[in-house]
């Protein structure tokens, strides 16, 4: 399983690079930092059916850091929600794959997000809805560390803790960077785990959020908290731009960056472990993973 998940992560990263490279610009850093989480959720942990994206009682991921949309799309396509070739329409006029997640356009997307902080509250609403319906679903939600500066995050945290929404599992993509610089320097959110605990949540810290097995273990641990009366926040220590060294090296500059075909080829060379060709820039056959 570890090898399968790892190779999936590479495939997803390659598709993120291809789709953003095709357009020439995009949120590369914050997409690459969350790939392991997406692979673990969609290929190992979530109760979903790609053939029936509206399956009643399904688990949901609400990606509150909506700018990670391209990474979610690459994952959904690999999982079979739609054809991978559509990834090349990313952000093109008329596309169903806009920069930020849109539930009315993309199969498998359960909430429209992009205005930071709001998706997290929506996830709390969905978790409340699931409790009222008693459908057994788990609501997963992903926020950014920069996003955690939004007051709405803490309004929602307080409510979810107070209402004992233990069917809610949050993830913080703690890549330590935001547009204007390091999170610590811009407006520190530390101590993060203590904050979540103070708001009535369990907090699990994952030392390396870009290690699939660490992420999977944390998700499974979080799932065991159902019945505890507390939601769980999993803090993933990640690297913004993970997997592509020249993107990582840009630091805060990799949030929304120009990304040429040459950049894409350079990234693919690193991800594939061989010299990438023009053909590698295209999106080809289906994944072997079923």
């Amino acid at each position, binding site marked *: 399983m570890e090898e399968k998940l790892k190779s999936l992560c590479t495939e997803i990263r390659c598709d993120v690079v291809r789709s953003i490279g095709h357009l020439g610009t995009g949120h590369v850093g914050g997409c690459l930092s969350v790939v392991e989480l997406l692979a673990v959720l969609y290929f190992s942990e979530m109760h979903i059916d790609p053939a029936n994206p509206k399956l009643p009682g399904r688990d949901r991921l609400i990606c509150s850091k909506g700018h990670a949309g391209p990474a979610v799309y690459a994952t959904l396509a690999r999982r079979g929600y739609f054809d991978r070739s559509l990834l090349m329409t990313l952000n093109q006029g008329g596309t169903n794959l806009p920069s930020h997640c849109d539930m009315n356009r993309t199969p498998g997307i359960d909430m*429209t997000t992009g205005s930071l902080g709001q998706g997290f509250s*929506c996830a*709390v*609403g*969905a978790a409340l809805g699931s409790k009222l319906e008693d459908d057994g679903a788990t609501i997963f939600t992903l926020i950014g560390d920069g996003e955690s500066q939004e007051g*709405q995050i803490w309004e929602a945290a307080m409510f979810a803790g107070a*209402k004992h929404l233990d069917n809610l599992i949050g993830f913080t993509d703690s890549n330590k960077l935001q547009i204007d610089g390091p999170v610590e320097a811009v407006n520190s959110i530390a101590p993060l785990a203590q904050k979540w605990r103070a708001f009535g949540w369990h907090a699990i810290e994952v030392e390396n959020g870009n290690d699939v097995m660490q992420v999977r273990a944390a998700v499974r641990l979080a799932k065991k908290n159902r019945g505890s009366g507390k939601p769980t926040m999993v803090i993933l220590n990640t690297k913004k731009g993970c997997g592509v060294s020249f993107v990582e090296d840009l630091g805060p500059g990799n949030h929304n960056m120009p990304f040429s075909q040459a950049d894409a080829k350079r990234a693919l060379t690193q991800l594939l472990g061989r010299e990438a060709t023009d053909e590698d820039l295209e999106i080809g056959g289906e994944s072997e993973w079923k």
Partner: protein
Amino acid sequence: MEMRAAYAACMAELMEQDRHVVILDADLSKASGTRALYERFPNQMFDCGVAEQNMASIAAGLASYGFKPWIESFTPFATRRICDQIAISICYAKQNVKIVGTDPGISAELNGGTHMSMEDIGVLRSIPGIVIFEPVDETQLRQAIPVINAYDGPVYIRLFRKALPDVFPADYRFDLFRADLLRAGKDLSIFVSGMLTADALTAAGMLAAEGIDCEIINVHTIKPIDRETVLASARKTGAVLTVENHNVIGGLHSAVLEALAEEKLPVCAVGVQDRFGEVGMMPYLRTAMGLTTDNIIAAAKRAVTLK
């Protein structure tokens, strides 16, 4: 009966019929009249505390789960404070959330300028996909609530919460998207919403004695405005007056002007003249903001003179 009591009675009926109808509060359920429903419907009433942004987005999340959430607060906090949540979590995401704002305009009285929304309709009117409704009396409100609940999409209800004089007869039939003719006339069209509707009718009676025959149309739904009715009446009378408990910028006056943009006729306004509210009781505030029957009469005469 107070408008909020009628509203709460309607909601209780809807919640009884459908467990997916839920109400979310931000610590103002008493003001909204729904406090007593918490005991009766413990799984359909949720108090988010003083956190309106979270309330709006939680409602969107519940709507995405198949629920029909109604959120409640005072008008300024139900609109301008959560404008982005309404725009993105609710309208852009196309979520079926109803927004109830109480104490519109000067009716906030003793809460004063901070709580006095002169701009709530203007704030929301430029957001695509939202319906904006302001009831006139209990009869209209009681018919409107189930219709709005059945309507699949975001609706803002600008609710005066205390008692209002009866305007509509018992045989009134409400249509969410049709303005209501209250008095036919030939000299001037008065388009009015909310609590000032009764005043417009009083003014029309007094103007009739002076030989000015006013047509009174209640525009209960300001967005989408019933353009057909507005145009037909304006073309018939050749002069227009709008009357509203709101800034003349962004509300009913603006909506009527937009509908009549290509018509060559005067459109005068009674409304708040682009200023903030202040503390006081209704009689003082009506005078201070220019919202009295006398103001309506003077503006009506001016509109007719401009023909």
